């Protein structure tokens, strides 16, 4: 996200660090999440600031859910950053799902950088109250 106009010593150091980071090009931030379960299913909220709908990838493969996203900020030409707290523009997080969840019926909504995922429980896994027989 940083573009440089004229390379100085510090920037050259940063550039060589960039070469390093190319080797670890799959480095990504772990977005913070909230996960809430109610009787109907699981709701997940994830903070993905700067991510637009087309840069968000959700994958379900057997029992894992992968959230992958890339933030894309409009950075003016020749910006030199002086203070960085969010140093990567990629987010990734993987969750293992349990089998009572209906992965075919996941709904997702991305609003102002917050992803809301709803994973309902499969029909047969809906809660039942178990009757206790009096002897």
């Amino acid at each position: 996200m940083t573009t440089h106009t004229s390379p100085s010593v510090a920037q050259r150091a940063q550039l060589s660090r960039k070469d390093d980071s190319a080797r670890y090009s799959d480095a990504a931030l772990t977005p913070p999440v909230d996960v809430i379960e109610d009787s109907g299913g699981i709701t997940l909220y994830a903070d993905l600031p700067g991510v637009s709908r087309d840069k968000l990838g959700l994958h379900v493969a057997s029992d894992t859910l992968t959230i992958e996203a890339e933030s894309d900020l409009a950075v003016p030409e020749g910006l030199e950053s002086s203070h960085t707290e969010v140093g990567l523009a990629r987010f990734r997080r993987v969750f293992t799902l349990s089998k009572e969840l209906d992965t075919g019926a996941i709904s997702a909504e991305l609003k102002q950088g917050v992803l809301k995922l709803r994973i309902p429980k499969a029909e047969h896994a809906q809660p039942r109250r178990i009757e206790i027989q009096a002897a």
Partner: protein
Amino acid sequence: MYRSLFPRDMFAEMDRLQREMQQAFDLSPTIRGFGRNGFPALNIGGTPQTVEIYAFAPGIDPSSLELNLERGLLTIAGKRENALPQDDEKAAIHINERFQGSFRRVLTLPDDADPDAVTAKYRDGVLQISVQRRASSQPRRITVQ
């Protein structure tokens, strides 16, 4: 102390370690502390014409964001609503990492920032603030007579 936006970020952890080392070796912080790991997370940069501030504040109603500029101090304040169910007894909260509640961050702008030429826009959960630098302080080429 605010909760960090990316609490499990290893780079941030290493950074924190480095910062604590610096503190241990008596490198004086500014009066507002080292000012990291707050909500919203800030990236700050500059071009010759502007100072650019990116505040990573996802999921906030833009109308509740309060942005003040007074005597060279820029304040970003607001509140993030709680997404967790409050009164559902049957709901279980399995993971709770996201920031919630009120926040306020203050930062000093450089001397040449023009308080009358500030633009701010909120998109995809990122607040981008752009402050123009005063024309008088921009580099000029002086022609030699």
